[in-house]
């Protein structure tokens, strides 16, 4: 008997020992092969003599069907380009769909099994730095970043670098994106407005009237009670963009909050000059009560918060209004127009506040980062891949493989990219300038192809943007781009934007432990208040709980950061 148990015990010990060996053998691998980083001269675009492999984490959208001719996420125009120009072979350490990518990254961090390089958000970046899992890229950036990337990053007034600098070391390569991503326009079915003889709503009151008419007066004329006034967030989107995720919130209520001067999720300057969290201010309560009334009157999608994808009802032609960034034509609007060529989605910088001004919240321009695993022998390879993208982006054809397939893709765009594109397209259409006038602006990497193709997709009259004066079928890819500029971005060009910035766009120390639960408290309370399952006054209880469960301490930390 005893011997048998001893045998079992021994067996267990052997297994445990084996698995430990496994774990400890990894770092030593890295040490053995550490070589030649310094021996090579710093050339941002130099190809490696021997093929270098880099294993990355990559987002792959399963619904993206753009790859052609047997191309795969690992073998396409982008990876071949990287191989030819840099002699770098890209491999996948993991792939994940857009909605699961963050989870996959979290898992890689938790199990300390990182790919050689990957794209992460600000929360994960902080976690990686704390855990000492990623490489210091200060010198890599100095020596290997291409002048074009440095120029764009410098144009952000140091914001981009600030976000990746920890204890004076640059721990990641930041992106820098167009500021238009952070403004959430009002998108309306203008054909519905016309059917009912209405104007785009200027004030919150008019906004409610339009929503009511869309719900009750059968704007699509199909005789059925099947229309939604205002779309609401689905399970993967938020009620409003917040300081950590300040861009690209789809179907939220950003426009309504900001028209009422409520900026939940943002750090604002209080009356006493000290930082205060927007979600706990009385303006937010006021805005919630407006939304609550709208929901109970049926003006907002009754299925908000439960839907998997609010875009579906935009595509199917049931939704009349929603809030979203300029690029919504890249989202559901393409399909909506393909389904129904008369779906005239137009975009407005509305509704306005009580003084008639447009006061949206604005985003930071840096939201994504490329990190490189500590001990990876060739950290500069990641930098070279990024250099290569910015230098050659216009060579790629998005219709045979979407830009998301570029390995480690970070967006590098001048902050005013979309606004410049919109103005340029208008000037070309008006005939005041020729396409050639815009050829010499390399930082605006897609501008040349934009001005060259605008006449293919835009029909006369050139100053009327209604959908009937476009020809999406001529070149769907270019139509998407041009419509995003001339319709989606136009409100940002034509209106004065009195935007509000958050005081910070990154986490403080206490947030690492407490923020998730505070955020959950906030999200649940607000969602329930709007949907009427909790009374409006539960807001006051929320404020108290928020303060006592770490919010007060966090506010002090934010004040420290801001007053530095």
């Amino acid at each position, binding site marked *: 008997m005893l011997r*048998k148990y001893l045998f*079992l015990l021994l*067996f*267990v010990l052997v*297994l*445990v020992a084996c*698995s430990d060996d496994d*774990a400890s053998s990894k770092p030593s691998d890295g040490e053995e092969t550490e070589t030649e980083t310094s021996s090579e001269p710093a050339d941002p675009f130099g190809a490696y003599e021997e093929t270098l492999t880099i294993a990355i984490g990559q987002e792959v959208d399963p619904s993206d069907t753009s790859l052609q001719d047997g191309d795969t996420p690992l073998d396409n125009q982008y990876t071949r380009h990287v191989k030819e120009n840099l002699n770098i072979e890209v491999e996948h350490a993991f792939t994940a769909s857009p909605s699961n990518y*963050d*989870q996959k990254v*979290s*898992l890689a*961090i*938790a*199990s*300390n099994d990182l790919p050689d390089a990957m794209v992460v958000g600000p*929360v*994960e970046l902080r*976690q990686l730095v*704390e*855990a*000492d*899992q990623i490489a210091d890229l200060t010198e890599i950036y100095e020596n290997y970043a291409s002048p074009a990337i440095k120029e764009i990053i410098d144009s952000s007034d140091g914001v981009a670098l600030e976000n990746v600098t920890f204890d004076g070391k640059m721990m990641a390569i930041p992106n820098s994106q167009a500021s238009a991503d952070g403004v959430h326009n009002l998108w309306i079915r203008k054909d519905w407005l016309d059917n009912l003889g209405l104007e785009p709503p200027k004030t919150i009151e008019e906004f409610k009237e339009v929503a009511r008419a869309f719900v009750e007066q059968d704007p699509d004329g199909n005789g059925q009670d*099947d229309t939604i006034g205002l779309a609401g967030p689905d*399970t993967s989107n938020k009620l409003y963009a917040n300081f950590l995720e300040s861009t690209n919130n789809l179907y939220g209520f950003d426009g309504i909050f900001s028209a009422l001067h409520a900026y939940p999720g943002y750090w604002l300057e209080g009356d006493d000059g000290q930082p205060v969290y927007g979600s706990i201010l009385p303006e937010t309560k006021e805005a919630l009560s407006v939304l609550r009334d709208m929901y109970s009157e049926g003006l907002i999608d*009754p*299925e908000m*918060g*439960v839907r*998997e994808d609010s875009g579906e009802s935009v595509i199917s032609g049931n939704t009349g209004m929603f809030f979203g960034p300029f690029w919504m034509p890249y989202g559901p609007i393409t399909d909506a127009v393909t389904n129904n060529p008369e779906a005239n989605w137009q975009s407005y910088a509305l509704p306005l506040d009580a003084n008639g001004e447009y006061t949206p919240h604005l985003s930071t321009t840096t939201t994504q980062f490329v990190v490189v695993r*500590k001990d990876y022998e060739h950290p500069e390879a990641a930098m070279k891949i990024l250099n290569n993208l910015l230098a050659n982006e216009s060579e790629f054809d998005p219709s045979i493989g979407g830009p998301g397939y570029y390995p480690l893709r970070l967006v590098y765009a001048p902050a005013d990219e979309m606004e410049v594109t919109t103005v340029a397209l208008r000037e070309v259409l008006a005939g005041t300038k020729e396409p050639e006038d815009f050829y010499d602006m390399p930082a605006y990497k897609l501008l040349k192809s934009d001005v060259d193709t605008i006449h293919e997709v835009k029909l006369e009259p050139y100053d009327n943007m209604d959908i009937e004066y476009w020809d999406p079928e001529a070149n769907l890819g270019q139509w998407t781009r041009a419509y995003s500029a001339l319709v989606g971005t136009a409100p940002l060009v034509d209106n004065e934007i009195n935007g509000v910035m958050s005081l910070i766009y990154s986490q403080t120390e206490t947030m690492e*432990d407490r923020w*998730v*639960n505070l955020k*959950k408290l906030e*999200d*649940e309370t607000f*969602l*329930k208040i709007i*949907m009427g*399952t909790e009374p409006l006054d539960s807001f006051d209880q929320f404020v108290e709980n928020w303060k006592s*469960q770490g919010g007060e301490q966090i506010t002090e930390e934010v004040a420290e950061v801001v007053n530095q």
Partner: protein
Amino acid sequence: MKSKGFAKHYYFMLIPGFIWLTLFSIVPMFGIMIAFQSYNPGAGVFGSEFVGLETFRYMFELSDTVNVFFNTIFIAIMKIIGNLIVPLVFALMLNEVRYLRLKRSIQTIVYLPHFLSWVILGGVLLDIFAYGGPINQMLGAFGIDPILFFGREDLFPFLVVGSDVWKEFGFNTIIYLAALTGINPALYEAAGIDGASRLRMLWHVTLPGIRTTAVLLAVLSLGNVLNAGFDQIFNLYNPLVYSTGDIIDTWVYRAGLLNLQYELATAVGLLKSVAGFILISLSYYLAYRFTNYRIF
């Protein structure tokens, strides 16, 4: 001597199961240490700073903790009750069906949902109970306003329990049917001769005949009181119903893997394991008391 040699290859057959148990259940147990640390994935379980019971203090401060434990136990107990009674009643009714082909086909049909994963069934259920889905259309025919079923925190636990029972009762029915065939037909004949009606036979022959099976199933399912079904709830819930639908497993998943709160997730998981261990010991004791079922 002879019997010892005979036993040896039985022990060898245990090896695959044993390896599995070691790799997936015993080795990961060292991870419990994370609950007492300020865990740093870069430094690993053995290199992170020890902070004692700090995480547990924070855990009990959170209103969520009590909430998810209550939800878990409530949903799990309802599931256990539903999964005992519904199959039992159904098996008894099916047992009375004399037309064998019909009996077999019904048995197979109700068994089918058991083989579908919750990922698929979750999508199907969400659509059936959607705002404009078939259920609401039927209610509409009676003049009832559409109900947002999966957005109602008061309804959510019952939808979860109901759909779980619907999915699994076919499987449990088969166990009862097997037990029913084990009853000696002579007992029915004897009861018939004594003039017992169908109902009397059910009461005095059938039910006592499967009593042991029923009690055993009930007692063994006690060990699952803290497993309310991650797959199912994960595929059905949304932030609106967290207050009544969030269970320990989904909460730990979100805290640990989505929000990188390793310590907190581990602490809650550990608490669950301790409570689960007590319940399994208890159910083992009860199984021994009532049905003489024993492993050791």
